[in-house]
């Protein structure tokens, strides 16, 4: 069963499968799959980039939603706490946030371990560090998008929920959230495209994403222009695919608005 599934996945592999992109150039080209070329390495980088972006979004969205809730709460102190968060993480360069998380987590874990008497040099997983840093940045931007979406929903919608006898969280889930998604989707689409580009920063802390893999290929093969061009092309294709796909989602979210 597992073998059949993996065979199917191999067959549908857009890079190194039987009808893959890198097969088009023959088996001996510099981007061929296998030992002769860099095709499979770059394909791996694409997978890492996509999985990093996909792993970041849910964390960032949930965090951003909570911050947006905090930023529009009645309580002044909670609003202030949320404001500090967004001010810090929208003001820091993404690269610096990544370094702070990467080295900071390393120092933190090390000091915690040494307080337990474990003296061992540890390396933080670059994927996790990248995910945390990107999620933090994503959440601070998405909280702004969600906040403005919250403000676009009239009070009457909440009051209607109260009038129907719904509880607070049911009002939120059944009445507010569907509208919120519709209003916030264009902004979130933008943020996704920005996130896709920001994943390139994790190549600096050693995660094998598109840019790092093409960079290694460029250094070894001395074909820097060609490989970095491929990197740009891959990011471009990813952006095109995701704006195409998100266009569908947007139309789906707007389906109730179209008939009016």
């Amino acid at each position: 069963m597992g073998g059949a599934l993996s065979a199917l996945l191999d067959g549908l592999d857009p890079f190194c499968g039987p009808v893959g992109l890198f097969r088009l150039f023959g088996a001996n080209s510099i981007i061929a799959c296998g030992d002769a070329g860099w095709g499979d390495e770059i394909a791996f980088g694409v997978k890492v980039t996509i999985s990093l972006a996909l792993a970041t979004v849910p964390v960032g969205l949930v965090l951003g939603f909570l911050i947006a809730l905090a930023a529009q709460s009645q309580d002044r102190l909670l609003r202030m706490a949320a404001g500090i968060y967004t001010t810090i993480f929208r003001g820091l360069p993404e690269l610096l946030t990544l370094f702070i998380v990467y080295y900071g987590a390393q120092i933190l874990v090390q000091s915690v371990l040494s307080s337990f008497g474990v003296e061992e040099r540890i390396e933080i997983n670059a994927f996790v560090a990248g995910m945390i840093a990107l999620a933090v940045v994503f959440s601070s931007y998405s909280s702004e998008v969600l906040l403005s979406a919250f403000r676009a929903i009239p009070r009457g919608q909440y009051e209607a929920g109260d009038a129907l006898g719904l509880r607070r969280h049911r009002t939120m889930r059944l009445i507010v959230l569907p509208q919120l998604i519709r209003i916030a989707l264009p902004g979130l689409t933008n943020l996704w495209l920005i996130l896709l580009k920001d994943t390139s920063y994790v190549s600096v802390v050693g995660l094998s994403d598109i840019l790092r893999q093409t960079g290694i290929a460029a250094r070894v093969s001395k074909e820097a222009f060609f490989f970095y061009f491929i990197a740009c092309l891959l990011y471009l294709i990813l952006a095109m695919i995701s704006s195409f796909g998100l266009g569908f989602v947007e139309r789906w979210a707007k389906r109730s608005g179209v008939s009016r």
Partner: protein
Amino acid sequence: MSAVSELIPPRAPPPSAKVPVTAARIAGIAVLILWGLLGIGLIMTVINGWDQTKFLRYGPRYLHGLWVTVSLVGLSVVLGAALSLPVAFARMSQNRVLNGIAYGYVYVFRSTPLLAQLFLIYYGLGSFRPELETVGLWWFFREAWYCGLLSFVLNTAAYQAEILRGAIQSVPRGQHEGAAALGLSPSIAFRKIVMPQALIVALRPYGNEIVLMMKGSAVVAIVTVFDLMGETRYAFSRTFDYQAYLWAAMFYLVMVEGLRQVWARLEKRLTRHLRR
């Protein structure tokens, strides 16, 4: 003779409304305490780890890095604005070819990472050394600073062209028609009527773009330019002192927040005639 013989004795004021202790309040206090602890921790790290020799050694380097960052961002924003003008006009033109080229340029530069563009220009074009030497452009592509500047200018020009186009197209048609009715030539109408209104619309996105550029400029550190981030990486690689990053964070935060405040002031001043 007054009807009232007895005055009503003064009474205590009504009790002030009590602020109920809600979950939101508790969460707010908890998070604020967390922020406070983090801030104290930050200050304590700086005080405990204070090292005069390190400060004297790396302090001036940080200031120099700050200057490199600011000058790089300033130059690229100004040059990018100059380049964005023709791109924006090409994007608005009726000519299919011009429009297509401008659209392709904007699309490509907006949907690829700045880091990849920088690598493409610095390492990619740098690998054509003999060709560049014959053209006499090698001095330009040899220097990481120039390559950083070039990639920033190309990148920000794409973003600014979209800002400019959106702003110009947001000016209602009636303004053009009104200018034509007054007998103004199209160029004067554009300069005196359309552009001032468009720039007010574009003010806020321009501010955001400068902030994004300032944050994005940290990537030049990776191609060996010693900007603020580059000096930070240098200091960290020499001392392994985590404070290096904290200082850089403070510099960047102050810079970005200051710019944001200045921009908000500027916008408030420039749009005072639109407020009711």
